[in-house]
């Protein structure tokens, strides 16, 4: 199989409030930055992940292409998903062998609307969406189920949030959030979740360049080789799932070869999700989880999963890890999960 690596990663300085930038104004510096980093002006393939509902405008992803420079026409695709799935599409395209480089990017401005209500629109339109149930209420159902099965307490969730926020304060790109409980009344958002258990509303963008074989070695001193990548989905209806576990993540992790990673960047948008994901991936205490602060410190929709792969790759690039894992999730209650395992050594 063709050797494919993450050779560059850039992201915006994410913001917890609307800075008055249009999406393309938020995205353009990230694209410019990754072109400068790689010295590439054109890519064999470009693939993006975004969600038109965030801006409330159909085909808003098309106008974002202006940031890439799409004329004369380029080979391009888009997924209405987190850009981690755009990366998957680009990886498949590179496997075909016709191109050597691919640009992947994702962006989202959640500050423009009511994110938790917007996400109601992704639900089953017959049984769920008409009830008006929102993203956080659904996550809280999973948190309750997980806590009752595992014995985890609210303090265990709070510890995840505290560690994530502390790491996030060391990450120049993340939001710098206070210790859990500072400045709030100690009440619930949707019980059993407290406000700090819920990823913050975030505007931001990120980009990754993938390259194959010698092109990757040419572009990057220490490429982060994708040694395994897989994505799986749970059953559609929350009422038929075992919400206390993430089998989709477990299977994706097994297929991608997650065992033995030193660092894991998990796309946990709620504190309890990290605990479910750790269990599904079999991560022990010796694995460093979310050194970037994770989505609990910055959660630009449609980019936050790609950022997990980018942050994991960055640990390979800078030599602090030899095997790292990036995880992305989409849909309610960890509905769909992608696991990407990266290594300083390409597969034999």
């Amino acid at each position, binding site marked *: 199989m063709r050797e494919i690596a993450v050779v560059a990663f850039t992201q915006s300085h994410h913001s917890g409030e609307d800075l008055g930038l249009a999406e393309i104004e938020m995205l353009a510096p990230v694209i410019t930055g990754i072109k400068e980093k790689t010295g590439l002006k054109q890519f064999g393939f470009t693939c993006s992940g975004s969600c038109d509902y965030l801006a*409330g405008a159909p085909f808003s992803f098309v106008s974002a292409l202006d940031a890439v420079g799409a004329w004369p026409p380029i080979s391009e695709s888009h997924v209405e998903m987190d850009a981690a799935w755009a990366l998957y599409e680009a990886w498949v395209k590179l496997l075909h062998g016709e191109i050597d480089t691919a640009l992947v990017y994702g962006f989202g401005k959640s500050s423009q609307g009511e994110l938790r209500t917007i996400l109601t629109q992704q639900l089953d339109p017959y049984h769920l969406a*008409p009830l008006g149930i929102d993203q956080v209420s*659904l996550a809280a159902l999973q948190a*309750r*189920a997980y806590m009752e099965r595992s014995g985890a307490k609210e303090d265990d969730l709070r510890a995840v949030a505290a560690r994530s926020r502390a790491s996030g304060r060391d990450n120049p790109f993340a939001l710098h959030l206070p210790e859990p409980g500072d400045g709030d009344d100690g009440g619930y958002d949707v019980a059993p979740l407290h406000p700090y258990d819920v990823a913050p509303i975030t505007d931001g963008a990120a980009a990754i360049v993938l390259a194959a074989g010698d092109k990757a070695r040419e572009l990057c001193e220490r490429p982060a080789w994708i040694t395994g990548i897989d994505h799986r989905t749970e059953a559609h209806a929350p009422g038929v799932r075992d919400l206390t576990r993430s089998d989709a993540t477990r299977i994706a992790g097994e297929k991608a070869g997650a065992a033995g990673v030193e660092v894991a960047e998990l796309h946990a948008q709620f504190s309890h999700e990290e605990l479910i994901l750790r269990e599904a991936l079999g991560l022990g205490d010796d694995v460093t989880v979310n050194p970037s602060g994770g989505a609990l410190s910055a959660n630009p929709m449609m980019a936050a999963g790609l950022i997990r792969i980018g942050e994991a790759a960055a640990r390979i690039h800078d030599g602090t890890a030899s095997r790292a894992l990036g995880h992305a999730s989409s849909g309610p209650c960890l509905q769909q999960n992608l696991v990407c395992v990266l290594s300083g050594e390409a597969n034999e």
Partner: protein
Amino acid sequence: MPSNTGPSNTGPNHVLEFPGGYTRSVGPVIGRFLSDLRDGRLVGVRTADGRVLVPPSEYDPDTGEDVTDEFVEVGPVGTVTTWSWVPRPAKEHPLDRPFAWALIRPDGADTALLHALDLGVFEEGADPPKFLKTGMRVRPRWRAERTGGIGDIECFLPEVTLINAPTRLEYSLKGGQALGRFLEGISQGKILGHRCPVCEQVIVPMKGLCPRDGVPTTEEVELPDTGTVTTFAVNNIPDPRAPEVPFVSGYVLLDGAGLTMLTLVAGVPADQVRMGMRVKAAWRPREEWERSMGNIKWFEPIDEPDVPFEEIKDFM
């Protein structure tokens, strides 16, 4: 889809809406479920391996195989399998006061249905009530006017586990002559008792006989309105006579009396009331006095040393 991209501080300047709502075909399986909902019934569909899916889907989520064409009536009672609690409902939510979301497995079904669970009236921001638990038994509250949608169930309600029975009986009581004389004293700000001719203890309020010796009593004695708390209880159920919750009811042994009176003890935090504490009656203003023990609101501490236990141990 009108849009105005200028700055706005007064709500949205852009709305994404499908006028009149979006029409969807539901197909025969979901259509059957929704039609039964309109009739006030919950149905599931049986899979090839015998499980019952509620809400039904066209396929078995485990195998992807077609389900059978057998529909099964389930519930309407079901069991909560997990829940979340919304202390501050959003405008899109089905209730405008704190409520729970729950996954509910109807009796006879193998999967769970998501819906709102109404647990009664709570103030905005309230924590989840203690009785909200996984395993709780609930049933739907149907709308009177049903249209064939998941909202035909307004919400779920807990099964009835308690009733609240009104209790009220009306009387015209006369307290008897001795008590009448006692209240006459109270109406003048005096606490009267009788001295027993046999044991010489003062009985207050007097009953016209000595409960110890069983002999009539007639000798009136006026007692001071000071005394000693011999024992007490802290009450957490509100009472219209008490100033607040928690309040303290106690036995007070009036100075010179041979038995205790049951009264309220106030003017001191409940956790600072002591056996042996010295107290004095707190009278209502004179203009409010009636022939009623209500003239004494309660007993309040006075600045005197506590009475040793030995001296009150026979008056509990």
